[in-house]
């Protein structure tokens, strides 16, 4: 019993150290990624295309729907309490600061995180990693780094689009249901939007992008021999991404409100 506990603890520490070593190597490879002509740049472009551009329609739809609901509820409910002005702080809090980055992260986890973990897992099972090494290609530089950069950049860009569609696009949707004067809307929206909100949102999406890409690549590389390990690692990658994203979100929010 005691021996089992000791073994589990030693394995856990070893696993954490291995993960830390992996993250360190990826960061190090990322710094050198843009130096010289890299084959991984094409992979990066494709990663941004798949993770960022192809997710834009879903992001735009969710952002506009969410923004429109907040505006409609705000302009219909809040004036009853003489607090119509609160519509804009609520809209900015939800779209820009809190829900925007988190929703983008959840979509990317479901869409790209799983895909990356699965792809790398199959690369391991089919011994492609050994082939890359044999060919003199660093698998981290070719497989992990472009995905790490691609997912992080995509999440940052998607967050900007989410904010744009959520704050501005939703205004046009609202016009069909509850017409609001455009000049008044944009003037007030821009007066309530603070640089801290944009910074908080950017920090969150940056952190979420790093967490999702590292979790997906790490668990993808953790597949050893069997293809049955792939879905298990994908589930672990998704779970870890969700947990760490929520934790980091809480920490950044805490820093924002206690500054």
């Amino acid at each position, binding site marked *: 019993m005691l021996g089992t506990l000791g073994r589990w603890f030693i394995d856990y520490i070893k696993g954490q150290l291995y993960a830390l070593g992996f993250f360190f190597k990826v960061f190090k490879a990322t710094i050198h990624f843009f130096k010289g002509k890299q084959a991984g740049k094409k992979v990066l*472009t*494709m990663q*941004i*295309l798949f993770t*960022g*551009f*192809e997710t*834009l329609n879903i992001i735009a739809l969710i952002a506009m729907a969410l923004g429109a609901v907040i505006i409609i509820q705000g302009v219909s409910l809040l004036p009853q*309490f*003489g*607090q119509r002005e609160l519509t804009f702080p609520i809209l900015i809090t939800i779209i820009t600061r809190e829900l925007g980055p988190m929703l983008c992260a959840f979509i990317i986890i479901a869409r790209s995180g799983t895909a990356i973990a699965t792809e790398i897992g199959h690369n391991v099972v089919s011994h492609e990693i050994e082939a890359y090494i044999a060919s003199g290609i660093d698998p981290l530089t070719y497989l992990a780094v472009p995905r790490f950069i691609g997912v992080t*950049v995509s999440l940052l*860009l998607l967050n*900007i*689009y989410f*904010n*744009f569609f959520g704050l501005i696009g939703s205004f046009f949707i609202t016009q069909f249901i509850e017409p609001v004067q455009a000049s008044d809307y*944009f*003037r007030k929206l*821009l*007066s309530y*939007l603070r*640089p801290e909100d*944009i910074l908080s949102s950017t920090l969150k999406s940056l952190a979420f992008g790093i967490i999702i890409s590292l979790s997906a690549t790490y668990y993808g590389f953790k597949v050893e021999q069997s293809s049955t390990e792939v879905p298990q690692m994908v589930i672990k990658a998704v779970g870890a991404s969700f947990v760490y994203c929520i934790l980091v979100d809480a920490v950044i929010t805490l820093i924002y409100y206690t500054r």
Partner: protein
Amino acid sequence: MKFHIRFAEQIVGFFILIALLMILVIIIFMGINQRWFSKDYHFTSRFLSGTGLSVGMPLKLKGFKIGSVDKIELNDDNTVEVNFHIFDTYYSKVRKNSVLELSVSPIGIGGSGLLFYPGVSKELIPDMSFIPSLDFTRGKDLVKRGMVDKPPSNDTILNIVNEIGPLLTNINDAVVSLNELLVTVNKTFNGTSTGPVGDIVDKINKLTGQFNTLLADATGKIDTILGNTSGITANLKTTSEGLTDTKGLVTKLLDPKGSISKLLNDNFELYNQITGILSGVQMTTDELKTFTGYINNSRPQISELLEGSREALQKGKDVLEALRNNPLLKGGVSEQAQQPTTFRGYREEDF
């Protein structure tokens, strides 16, 4: 090859460019809207409480936003120091004797805000100066002296609430006065009031009582008089009947052989006796007059004698009381048989 795969780099480039442009445009418009590139004038003020104050809170003049709150701090003397800025476009309104007012809605929603009232002076307040608030005497004095351009409040709820206070105070005063009036009226009608009306009512009550007593007394006397009058009337009737009778009293009085006739014809014998008696009475009266004069002359000495006797008796009484109360002499005097006085009045006789 699919379109978006073939033109992946262009699409990604466009995707990144548009995103960067959007964020750039938003930041530029945000900066313009929030006056990042404009000069603001900074001031400080002080309030009694920070309730209703918040960082970023707009500073308003006649409904226009002219600035906002930058910082709120609680001082060592428990006052709240507020740092705020005013836009350069409204700096011309920041004149000497300007004041601030923190308007807090009493029902919690709406109507709250930090209001700016410019002074009537033409002199501008320099940057980083102190602007007093209406929470303190300095600001109130400026308003009282008419040195501030402060229009009446247009917040209906606040006005109503402000009006209700004095109204309720007046109603309360009126009710208290009415209550006191009722108590006074009750006291007055009970005759216990100390006021003039109370005195009058009290006197009327007493007079009525006295009048009733007098009336009862007079009624008894009138009844007695009426009874006597009846008797007199009966006597008069009898006398009248006697006078009219031929054998009555008049006939007897006029009889030449009667007593009256004899008394009137005694050769002044009765008259002389009466004169002698009167002379004796005259002499006695003279002696009595002389004695009375002597007594009158001796009255001061008699009074002095009586006063001396009274004082002697008082001192004697004190001595006796002292002897009786002295524990050494108490019981020291032997009992003596009392000799009854020989002089006793008839009134002191036992029955």
